[in-house]
């Protein structure tokens, strides 16, 4: 079992793609947008700028992860590269794992650059803001958020690879992955509202609770509040739990992907 040659090729190919530099440029642009939006609000402008900048960061990484994983896997099939690769002494599951690992490394590089862009942007905004009570920015917290965002990107990449194998249309795979991500973000709020509501029937509550346990929970990776508000505390146990959760769930998704790819007619 050796998925690394495919991972290496995938990673090199993804770094050359326009989406890499394009989305990083978009992030710089969105930092300016965050600054402009924050100028409109009364009070703590740095808090508002951080809210928007970190949200843009979060969603840009999610979009990048979906685009590269779905796009790269699909391109291999449409350009018939996959035949060439599979003609070598390589298992199909190695190919899937290689694709995933290549995407994961590309996501890591993307998050690494994004972290520098967002952190420097926030520090500049905070340094130039004219506030009565300065808003303190803790870079370590932005770094911890970036680590979680990276895990989320890896998790999403696994789904991207799975959907690229599952669907025969690239657009459908992309839309499915994006909707899965949005639904995963809504999971906790929906459960919170449904369980506390008097108007929802016990059957529907049960369905929502089952969905809550089984569906991928992307809201776990969203700790923007921890970065923006210093009063919010997060225990190391939380980070460890999220890491283990994403590791186990990603492995499960990859198992399904390899199973489907083994049976797919090319």
């Amino acid at each position, binding site marked *: 079992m050796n998925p690394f040659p495919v991972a290496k090729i995938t990673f090199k190919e993804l770094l050359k793609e326009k989406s890499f530099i394009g989305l990083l440029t978009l992030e710089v642009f969105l930092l300016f947008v965050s600054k402009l*939006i924050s100028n*409109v*609000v*009364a*009070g*703590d402008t740095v*808090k*508002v700028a951080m*809210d*928007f900048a970190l*949200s843009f960061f*979060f*969603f840009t990484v999610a979009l990048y992860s979906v685009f590269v994983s779905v796009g790269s896997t699909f391109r291999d099939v449409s350009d018939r590269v996959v035949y060439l690769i599979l003609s070598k002494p390589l298992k199909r599951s190695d190919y899937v794992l290689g694709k995933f690992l290549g995407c994961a490394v590309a996501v890591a590089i993307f998050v690494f650059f994004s972290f520098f862009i967002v952190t420097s942007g926030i520090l500049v905004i905070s340094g130039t803001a004219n506030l009565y009570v300065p808003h303190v920015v803790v870079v370590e917290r932005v770094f911890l958020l970036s680590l979680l965002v990276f895990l989320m990107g890896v998790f999403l990449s696994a789904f991207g690879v799975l959907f690229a194998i599952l669907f025969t249309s690239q657009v459908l795979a992309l839309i499915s992955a994006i909707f899965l991500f*949005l*639904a995963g*973000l*809504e999971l906790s*709020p*929906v459960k919170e*509202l449904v369980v506390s509501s008097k108007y929802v029937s016990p059957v529907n509550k049960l369905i929502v609770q089952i969905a809550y346990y089984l569906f991928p929970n*992307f*809201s776990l990776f*969203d700790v*923007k*509040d921890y970065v*923006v*508000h210093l*009063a*919010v505390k997060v225990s190391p146990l939380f980070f460890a739990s999220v890491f283990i959760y994403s590791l186990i769930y990603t492995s499960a998704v990859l198992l399904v992907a390899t199973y489907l790819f083994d049976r797919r007619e090319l």
Partner: protein
Amino acid sequence: MKRLLVAFLLVVVSIPFMLKADKSKPRVNEVAPVLPYSYSQVLLSSPGLRSPAADLLFMNLCYLTGNDVFNRWKERKFTEEEWKRLIENVEVIEKLDPYYFDPLYYLGSYVPWKVEKNRELLLKINSILLHGNQMIKDWRLPFFVGFNYFYFLNDKVKGAKYLKIASQMKGAPFYLKLLVPRLYAESGKIDLAIAVTYEELKRTEEGAVKKELKRRLKALLAIKELDRAIRIYRNRFGKCPSSLQDLVKSGIIRAIPEDPYGGKFYIEKKNCTVWTTSNLRPVKKSTSSR
């Protein structure tokens, strides 16, 4: 190249039509109403964007209030119903982002003055502020609650209770420590006022505040002593003394104590209780007679 030039010309030709259409376009009434937002709707329509949604709601709230303040809608001001919606929208913001201080500051410092006659809305404001205080440990939140109670709702005991909480929080100004016993004393809770002052004296290390608290304690103890003497007088003669001199003449006290603030103690006929012309604040001798 020719095609590009023609395309450009076509765009230029379309401009007057666009302007004409823009002028005749149906406009929304300029008076922007205060819309009620539901927490669940905002939450579900903004996945992963709770905080930015809270920021946008607060921006909208500031914009609407600004229009009201600067009379942009010349024909009218906010109605009571709109103030109610506005307060409820702050509650939605707090649910979306429980650590966001600015909307609470706006709610505590500005809105009560606009709804000062509406007891229900004032109590609603207080409950939102207290809920926010569970997350945000800022002295100004219980201070606003206390202020609303004693100033707008005329409940000095509850006012003092929350001002006491505020005075013990980090960053609270020293004068809050003095305000609390005065509110208790003004509402007739002398024993509570003395207890609070003792407590603060033990806690306070700052020299100037300590000195001021000692003066307050001296005045409160004098009031308590005179109140006790009045009770004895009433038991003995079955009526309220007409002045503090009656207490001296009847031999219950030897002399009327001096008010350390420079005022004079007197009997409030209505309740037959003692109070001072200084109101527990330093006064000049010339203005102390009542």
